[in-house]
Every structure is written in structure tokens, then in C-alpha cells.
């Protein structure tokens, strides 16, 4: 039996506003428990919610970044259930009139293809507090610092068909919300949380299977594992002739196990109704335009610009444009380096390799784009050979020397590119190797000829004390040998 995997994601994104969505309490991470919970957050009698304008601004920015319709009149609803980390006994969320409508995100996959994942909608809601089940002698500790933090919940259509696609989308979404500045992107702090809905259907069939939801995955690695695990679990059941129960599951990444979270008896009827303490929020054109003005260049726009402006291929453009800081570094390099393609090669090659080796991010790099760009310029104008350039790079990285010119000077790496001088050297060397010259000129196989050329390089480099420009030597040799 062949199965198609059908995946949809729900992502909770904590918005990086200074204060909570309905109260003025701080959203700063890491405070002592219950020190960032006001009377409103504690749901004390008579307290009332007041919506945070910045949360709306960030939500609209998100909508614009995913090509979505903006909800011009959005309504808050009460989702009713009892739990100690939900002080009011209801969560204020949005059901039928969310702030962001249908949109889409295009995701680049490893094989170079592009996948469009549709966004069904995104809505604003308040986060609950935290329940801590250890350290309290059998009781549960409730920390309400997080209660009331603004979230957007992003719901996709079930457009993904593999763990690879789901993870690629998740990474793109993470990069997007971080780069437009609405979320700090720190998944270890729970700034993004992923719920994965998975079902299987018979290959080629249109009929969707029953789906399960796996909640609260906060790393890409766990997401990938959880999907693989659930797909296997469902496949086993279906191949045995069983049926999938629609349920919520929790995945334990350490042990690669999952368990059912909610049984049927405890299924909640949330009794949604519009919150009578909050008015519908009307978004006008001016608000949308001011949100648009706050958007930085989006990764897709930047990729297109890099291809056009710097003549980069799709692959290189994507790698350089995805992350805002890498993109900035590259552009700095290219502006000083003059040769954009060469700059791209060095940023994606030597520079990135060194970052990985030293376990640094581009922000932590010990050299600037300007420094690398100046080196690139010296390669482009033949001042230094590629082997010489590597030495310069090393020196720059280690902080000796300050700039490319100074290092080239100090280490005597300047190539001789004076063609006159080089010609003279070639003449002298060729004169001293008449047998090899004759062999070369009598050889008919171009491949063998090419190899023979290498034989002249050694003496030439020796004659030039290693400073001869090898490219030019090559050209001059060919000219003299072939005429």
C-alpha cells in the first residue's frame, strides 16, 4: 500500500511587543515568577482588557509579508475552558474574523524546486501562563508572567507532503518573522511553537485521512523526528486495517515516543462568543501603509534583487539573501570588491567555511565586509593570486594586519603582473628548456599539451620568486609556444 503524507502546521509566534496584548505588563523573558502579572493578567474582579496597538501593527506586517489579505474588521472571541494557567477561565482569541486572511509562502527546497504553502489565516490571541509540574512536591506551580503575551497563531493549509517540506517551511517562517522584526526568533525561549497536523491518504486518492495533532514542538530537529514517528505510527495502524483516532498527541524528542494528550471524555466545547469587553478593531488603509513602511526588504524580494543586480544564479542568490545579516555582509563585500560574482564565491566559500569551523555566526565574524571586499578587489585586479589571497584572508581573520593591502605588502604577496617583465621571464625560461618546448610543439593531443604546460610553471614561479601572476604566465606561455 502506498501512502501520501498530508501535513498542515499551526505555529504560535510570540510577538516582540514590549507589553502584553491586553495589559501594560512587561513581556521580558526570564523574570522571577509572577512578577510580570498585573491585576488584569491575574483576572482580578472588575479588571478589563485594553488591546495593544503594536500587536496589531506586527500582525499586519506579518500579513503583508505573506501576501495575505488584511482583516479590515477583526473581532476578539472568548474561548472558554478551565485550567489554572488561564486566569480568566477563557482565552481571548479570534475565531471568525481574524486580523490576517489567506496568504502564501514560497519555500525553496534542497533540490532547487520551489513549493508554495498556503496560509489559511493568522489570528491574534493571548498566551497562557506556565504550569510547572516538577519541584512543587506533587503540586503544580503556576507562573503567570507569560499569561497575556501577544501571539499570532498561523494556520496553514495541509499543503506539505513530507517532513522535509514541513521543516523547510518552518525554517522559512522562522526566518521571516525574525527578519521583519516581529518576533525574537528564540525557539529555546518558546518564541515560536509548532503544532503539526498529520494524516495519510491512499496514494493518488483525493480523500483525506483522519489527522492527528502533535503539539508544542519547539525545534526543527524534533519536528522532523516527530513527523517521521507519527507517519510510521499511522502507517502501522492503517496497514493493520485499523483506524486513526482524531486526537492530540505529545511527542518526546529525547525518547522518540509519543502519547495521546486528550481523551474523548475530556474533549472541550469551547463555547466561543465575541468578547463583550472589546470592540471590533477596524484597520484602515493608513494603518496598513504605515505597517508596510516598517517592513524591511523581504527575503524573496532580496533574492530577486541579488540576481538582477549582481548577476548571481538562483542558488547563490538564495543562500546569500535568506538571512538579513549575511545579505548585508555580502553587499558590503561586493561594494568594496567590485566583482560581485567573485565576492559571492568568497562569502559562500572561504568565509562561510571559516564561520562554520569556528562555530560563529556572521554577526560574530572577526572581519568586516569591507575588509573582505578589499581583498576581493585585489584578486580581481590581479594584485594577488588565489593562493596568496588565502594567506591574506587567514591574516585578516586572525586580526594581524588590518587590511588586505597592508598584509600583501608585509608578506610580499604582490604578484608581478607587469607583462613586459613576465614576458622576459618566459623567454628566459623557454630558452633554457628547448627540448620541452619542442615536445610541446610536436604534441597533437590538447589534453597532453595542457599537462605539459604545467611543467613550465615550476621554473617560471622559481624565476619570479613565486610572485609571478600564474594566469598571466599561462597566457604568455600559450602565446609564445603556439605561435
Amino acid at each position, binding site marked *: 500500500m502506498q501512502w501520501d503524507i498530508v501535513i498542515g502546521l499551526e505555529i504560535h509566534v510570540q510577538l516582540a511587543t514590549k507589553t502584553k496584548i491586553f495589559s501594560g505588563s512587561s513581556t521580558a523573558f526570564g523574570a522571577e515568577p509572577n512578577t510580570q502579572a498585573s*491585576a488584569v493578567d491575574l483576572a482580578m474582579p472588575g479588571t*478589563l482588557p485594553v488591546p495593544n496597538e503594536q500587536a496589531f501593527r506586527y500582525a499586519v506586517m506579518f500579513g503583508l509579508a505573506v501576501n495575505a489579505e488584511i482583516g479590515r474588521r477583526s473581532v476578539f472571541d472568548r474561548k472558554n475552558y478551565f485550567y489554572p494557567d488561564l*486566569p480568566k477561565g477563557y482565552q481571548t482569541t479570534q475565531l471568525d474574523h481574524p486580523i490576517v486572511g489567506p496568504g502564501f509562502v514560497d519555500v525553496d527546497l534542497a533540490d532547487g524546486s520551489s513549493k508554495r504553502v498556503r496560509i489559511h489565516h493568522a489570528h491574534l490571541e493571548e498566551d497562557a501562563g506556565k504550569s510547572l509540574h516538577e519541584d512543587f512536591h506533587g503540586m503544580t506551580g*503556576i507562573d503567570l508572567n507569560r499569561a497575556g503575551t501577544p501571539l499570532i497563531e498561523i494556520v496553514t493549509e495541509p499543503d506539505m507532503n513530507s517532513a522535509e517540506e514541513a521543516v523547510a517551511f518552518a525554517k522559512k517562517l522562522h526566518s521571516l518573522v525574525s527578519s521583519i522584526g516581529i518576533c525574537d526568533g528564540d525557539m529555546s525561549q518558546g518564541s515560536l511553537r509548532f503544532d503539526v497536523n498529520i494524516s495519510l491518504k491512499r496514494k493518488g486518492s483525493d480523500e483525506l485521512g483522519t489527522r492527528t495533532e502533535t503539539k508544542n514542538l519547539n525545534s526543527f530537529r524534533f519536528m522532523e523526528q516527530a513527523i517521521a514517528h507519527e507517519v510510521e505510527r499511522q502507517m502501522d495502524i492503517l496497514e493493520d486495517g485499523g483506524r486513526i483516532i482524531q486526537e492530540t498527541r505529545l511527542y518526546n524528542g529525547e525518547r522518540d515516543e509519543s502519547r495521546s494528550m486528550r481523551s474523548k471524555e475530556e474533549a472541550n466545547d469551547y463555547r466561543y*462568543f465575541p468578547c*463583550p469587553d472589546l*470592540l471590533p478593531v477596524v484597520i484602515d488603509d493608513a494603518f496598513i501603509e504605515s505597517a508596510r513602511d516598517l517592513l524591511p526588504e523581504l527575503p524573496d524580494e532580496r533574492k530577486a534583487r541579488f540576481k538582477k543586480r549582481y548577476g548571481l544564479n538562483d542558488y547563490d542568490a538564495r543562500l546569500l539573501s535568506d538571512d538579513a545579516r549575511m545579505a548585508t555582509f555580502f553587499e558590503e563585500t561586493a561594494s568594496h570588491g567590485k566583482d560581485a560574482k567573485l565576492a559571492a564565491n568568497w562569502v559562500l566559500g572561504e568565509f562561510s567555511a571559516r564561520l562554520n569551523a569556528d562555530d560563529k555566526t556572521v554577526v560574530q565574524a572577526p572581519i568586516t565586509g569591507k575588509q573582505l571586499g578589499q581583498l576581493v578587489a585585489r584578486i580581481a585586479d590581479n594584485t594577488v593570486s588565489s593562493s596568496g589571497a588565502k594567506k591574506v584572508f587567514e591574516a585578516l581573520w586572525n586580526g594581524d594586519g588590518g587590511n588586505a593591502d597592508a598584509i600583501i605588502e608585509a608578506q610580499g604577496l604582490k604578484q608581478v603582473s607587469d607583462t613586459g617583465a613576465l614576458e622576459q621571464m618566459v623567454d628566459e625560461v623557454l630558452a633554457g628548456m628547448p627540448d620541452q618546448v619542442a615536445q610541446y610543439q610536436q604534441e597533437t593531443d590538447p589534453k597532453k599539451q595542457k599537462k605539459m604546460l604545467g611543467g613550465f610553471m615550476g621554473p617560471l614561479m622559481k624565476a619570479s620568486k613565486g610572485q609571478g601572476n600564474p594566469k598571466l604566465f599561462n597566457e604568455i606561455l600559450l602565446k609564445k609556444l603556439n605561435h
Partner: protein
Amino acid sequence: MHNKSVAELSRELESGKISSVELTREFLDRIKAEDGQYNSFITVTEDQAMADAKAADEQRAAGKAGVWTGVPFAHKDIFCTKGVATTAGSKMLANFVPPYDATVTANFRAAGAVCLGKTNMDEFAMGSSNESSFFGPVTNPWGLANGEKRVPGGSSGGSATAIAARLVPAATATDTGGSIRQPAALCGITGLKPTYGRVSRYGMIAFASSLDQGGTMARTAEDNALMLNVMAGFDQKDSTCVDRAVPDYTATLNEPLKGLRIGLPKEYFSDQLSPAMEQQVRNAVKEYEKLGATVKEVSLPHAKLAIAAYYVIAPAEASANLSRFDGVRYGYRCEDPQDLNDLYTRTRAEGFGGEVKRRILVGTYALSAGYFDAYYLKAQKVRRLIQQDFINAFKEVDVLMSPVSPSPAFVQGEKTSDPVTMYLEDIFTIAVNLAGVPAMSVPAGFVDGLPVGLQIIGNYFEEARLLNAAHQFQQVTDWHQKLPQ
């Protein structure tokens, strides 16, 4: 002094004939001596009141006194008062001391008024007789002389009684389905429910968010105007509050009423009203005609749907608003909870009274899957029709007049066996809350020796017109000055 109005007391204090300390002492002594028979106060804040009175006298000496400086009053125990128990008439909050003031509370503090305590009320404002309070029922001063323990009306029964018994000259109150107007009528005092959104709900313990409104109670229209000057206004902390200038409600009390167009909704003068009650109300309307007003019959065609719509919407909102009372962060908690479920079920079973539980269950049902469309959604649609009736009526007339309640104060226990009989007490008042328009109850006569009120309903934000109409009526009648024995 205790028979004087706020306006009169303010002048007495201004003239120096009496100090706030003396005045406050007098009222506190009266409460101590008399309230045993009424039970109109849940908490009396004697020490704080005397301290506030002293501070008020110092303000006056420094030349900084306003009209409310040093004047005693009380808050319905639904307004959070920082550092003072705020119970909403419930065991669930019997131990709750808020660390914050309601905006209404803060406003009166800033005005220099002296709060004597928190008045009794139906539990969580759910009731029309003040018989459901955890702190015991309130007894109406009217009828006691005949040995009858009658209800003062509800839910603001404590405030109404305290004023009628001259224990305070004024008290704050709230009205969700008639809870200011009906007790005002049953106790022979004057009360006003402002337009929805006129007074901030911040710190006012919520029953039904889209219907609740804080308002005024005193013996005269003028006093109500003085109170509304303090209570009304925009508040950032309440998203449903309206940002609209507050006029001086006392400035227009004496505008002549000539040309005032009065409408009498025919649906409110039907066979549900006893002839005796109807007569009192029609007599009152005749006084208005003498003052130069014109009267015509109008119609509120959807009036008969109001009780049904209200008793779906209000409990639905209440069922969510009262979910926060769970024994976790404040308020009552059951003893030795075994697990989370036990904590919730016993805390709420023990902490809430019968009427509150009834309404939470009704509200939960009306919102539940499969019933939402038929009940909650349908009721909201009906609500819009009811609102439209008022909008249409106000195209033809300036104010509407009607009875406030179907009967005068009934005896305690008379209506508690059947909740629906109690709900019908609100039959003339409830549509007003659904529409959000302002309305007053003004003493207008007596039936069987018990007070009867006249309801005056105005268009949105026309509180000044209502107070003017009530004040002019009180210039030519003296129902509002009658004292229970």
C-alpha cells in the same frame, strides 16, 4: 442633618455650620443604631471614613474644597475599593480585598467625598429583591412600620435602602436589567442608569459585560446630577467606555419643560399592570403635561421579547465572566482540595449561591455547541430589533415614560420559589439595558402605602435631559421627600 440632600449638605459644610467629621460621625452613628433592622451595609469603614472626613475638613480649611468634599456616601459592594473588602454579595469574595480602586471609586476619592462603607446587594448583581446575598437579605424600610419585611428590590437593594433610611444621602449602584431603577422605585428614591459606556466599568465586578452600567442613587434628581458629574467620563482602562465630553449635569436642571415630547409605549401599559399602579404612573404623566409637555402613544413592538433575550444574553456573558472564580488566585477556596477537578467543583459549588449557579448553567447551555445559534445568536439578533424600536421611537418623541415595576415592594420570600416570577419584575426595565439607552426612576406616588416609581427613558447620552425632566417634576411634587416611618 441626615434628612438633607447632598446639595444641602454640601452647602452646610461650605458655610462652616458643621464639619465633615461631625457629619460623618452622625451618619456612622445612625448606621450603627439603625442598620440592624435593614442589613443594608456589608462593610462599614468607620476608621477610614473618620480619617477621610478629617482630611476633607483640612482641604476646606486650605481653601481647596469642591462640592463633594467631606460629603458622606456609600459604594455598592460591586465597586472595588482598595484595601477594603469587596464581596459582590458573595461567599466567593467574602475574603477579597482588592489592591486597586475601581475608576468610579477613584473618582469619588479625588472629589473628596467620604465613603462610609459598602452596601449589600444580590449576589453578583443577579436578582431583583436583594434576597440572594450571602450576607443576608436587605429589608425595605417601607412596610416595617406595619411589621412587614418587604424587599427593597435588587440588585442594588442595599444602596436604595441606606438612602431611604437616611443612613447615607447618596450611594453608587449598578444596573444590568433594572438593578438601579427597580430598587429606587421600591424604596421611593431617585436613581439613574446612564447610557452604556458613559461610566467606566473598570473595577466594577462584571456580571454581563454588554449590559452592566454604573449609576447613581439619591433622593433627588439634583443629587443624582451631582453624582453623575463625578462618575461619568472616558477611561482608558475600559475599552467599551465612550470618549465623549461630560457636561455639567446640574447646569441644565432648571430648563423649562415646555414642548417636551413624551411617548408612552403601549406595550408597557397592558394588562400586566394593575390598575392602581397604572393610575399612579398616569397621574405622574399628567404633571408633565401641566409643565408643558405633550404626550402621545408610541410602540416598542419587540418589547415582549426583551425578557427572553436578556435571560439568554446576560447569563451567557456571566457564565464566562464568573469563570475566573476558581479558588486558584484569590477569593474562596474549598478546604483540602484533592486534585484540580475537586478544587474547581467544590470551590464553585460552595462559593456560589443558587441563583448564580442557575444563571451560569443557563448561560453555559445557551453558548454550547448545537445551541449557540438557536439561543445566543438568536437573542443577539432580537436585541438589535429591540434597539431599533427605541431608535425609531426617539424619532417621534424626546423621552419615553412607563412604570418601573409591575408591583410595589413585595414581601420577602413571596417570589423566591419560582425564578421566572422574579425575572418578570424586570419587564419594564430590561429592554433599556438591551438597547443601552439611559433611564431613570423617579418617585411618583404610592399604592397601598408603598412607593411607586415613574420610569423616564432617554435617547443615547441624554442624561441631562432626563435629570432636567426629573428635577422639574420634583419641583411640583413631593413624593421624593416622603419618609418611611
